[in-house]
């Protein structure tokens, strides 16, 4: 589904990502973990096109997407959430989801004019599904900025889902959530996997990662130090070193 080969990103002297390789298979939940500053978010930003790689290849469904414009990557089937929530706070919850209706699937359903200057009618059903899934239906008409923190995280997820991606990139979706919310998230991720989504999950919350992922890639200082099933990774001494060594 997604393959990264020799990916490198330098910011001036900082080697945020320093030559990593991994491949995500269709239908799996793939974990990307590592201590703070190890280059996880940078990797997602590279895949989504917010940064251009210094070196390396990003293949999505066999196609090199390095030259694909950022906004077009969504229509290829890549949707993401942000670690530091980035919602359109002055739009309503409903409108936030409406923004993500740019995938080819939506194009087939409504013509150009209807999609851009049409009213809400033709999007209503799809969006209410996404809202139901994230448990935000009762807040559809509230401004996104007025939501509680946990709700904002869920809205980020819903917005990514509204784009009907093939691959979901979740950057620390559990950050700042309480135990109950994390349990819900766990359940949602499993449901999404059943529905056929492929997921890249970045998380610091180890219990969640170990519970939902099929395979995990561990980064440290921009390099891959381990890859394998949760059990293999947990047993890996290099991983322990990395985490204990940085005090996390």
């Amino acid at each position, binding site marked *: 589904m997604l393959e990264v080969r020799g990916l490198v990103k330098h910011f001036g002297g900082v080697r945020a990502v320093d030559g990593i390789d991994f491949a995500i298979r269709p239908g799996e939940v793939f974990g990307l973990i590592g201590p703070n500053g190890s280059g996880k978010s940078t990797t997602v930003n590279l895949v989504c096109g917010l940064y251009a790689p210094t070196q390396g290849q990003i293949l999505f469904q066999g196609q090199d997407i390095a030259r694909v414009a950022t906004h*077009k990557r969504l229509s290829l089937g890549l949707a993401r959430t942000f670690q530091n929530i*980035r919602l359109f706070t002055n739009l309503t919850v409903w409108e936030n989801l409406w923004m993500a209706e*740019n995938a080819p699937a939506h194009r087939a359903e409504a013509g150009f004019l209807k999609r851009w200057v049409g009213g809400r009618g033709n999007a209503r059903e799809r969006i209410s599904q996404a809202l139901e899934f994230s448990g935000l239906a009762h807040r559809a008409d509230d401004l996104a900025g007025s939501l509680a923190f946990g709700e904002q995280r869920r809205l980020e997820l819903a917005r990514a889902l509204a784009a009907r991606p093939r691959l979901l990139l979740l950057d620390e979706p559990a950050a700042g959530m309480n135990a109950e919310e994390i349990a819900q998230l766990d359940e949602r991720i499993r449901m999404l996997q059943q529905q056929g989504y492929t997921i890249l999950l970045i998380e610091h919350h180890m219990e969640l990662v170990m519970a939902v992922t099929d395979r995990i890639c561990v980064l440290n200082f921009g390099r891959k130090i381990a890859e394998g099933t949760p059990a293999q990774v947990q047993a890996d001494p290099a991983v322990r070193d990395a985490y204990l060594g940085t005090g996390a």
Partner: protein
Amino acid sequence: MDFYYSLAQIIGFHALLGLSAYVVLLTGQVSLAQAGFFAIGAYVAAMFTVLAGWHLVPAMLAAGLAAAAMACIVGFPALRVRGLMLVIATLAFGEAVRLFFFNFDYQVAKGEVKVGPLGGEGFRQIRWFPEHGWTGLDVMLFVWTVVALVAGALWWLDRSRFGAVLRAVGEDELAAQSVGLNLTAVKVTAMTIGGFIAGLGGAIYAHYTTHIEHSNFGVLLATFAIAYPILGGLRNVLGTIVAVIFVQGFLVEGLRFLGDWRNLLFGALIVLAMNLRPNGLIDAATARRLARLFGREARRA
């Protein structure tokens, strides 16, 4: 009565100017080029009615299209820069347009007299309204029909997905890209729409005053253009129109008895208003309070 007709016309074309800046502001771009598009509209429309003898309506459309085309062309390079750089770039563009008309001669003999733009002298004798026997009332109704059409179209646009897209881009460009919005396309479209509206406004202005010259289209006018939506708030088009009525009707006309002091007051009022209400006269909180007052959208509160 003629005084009020004339005032309503002034408010009308200033409303168009303000609305043109409103569209662009929704995408988070502060454009000081609107006076330039307004100038292009004014000159183009006047040249069509005076020199080519066109009817006003097609001349206005041509003016709008010319201004829109210019806005589209300017949009591409200008939108590569953002924020304050854009303010400066558009300011310079507006000045360039003004200076262009300062140097622009295109005169044609019509009977004994020569008509057409003549550099610093400006463009005189744009007399389409009187030549066609329109009264002040006719003109006023015409102007406000145009304003109503434009405002209505924008109102509808605001409620469509495109309106929300404009606001989304204005709020967070990065997130907008990540949900698949093409920033360049959205911003250039907004700029083009804004250019069209400003062009229409300029066309009306030229035929209202009958005499235009480059100095009408300076920084002051550009400031007015963005001041209306900023004062009125970006909630909806009505805010902008209310701001125009307030500024042109009350500050400029209502306070005429203050004479020269009025201009002093204008600058001072903007400074004061921004200190007291940094988010516009009608900011989000006020809008919600008003909405509650009228019982609508109570659930949003």
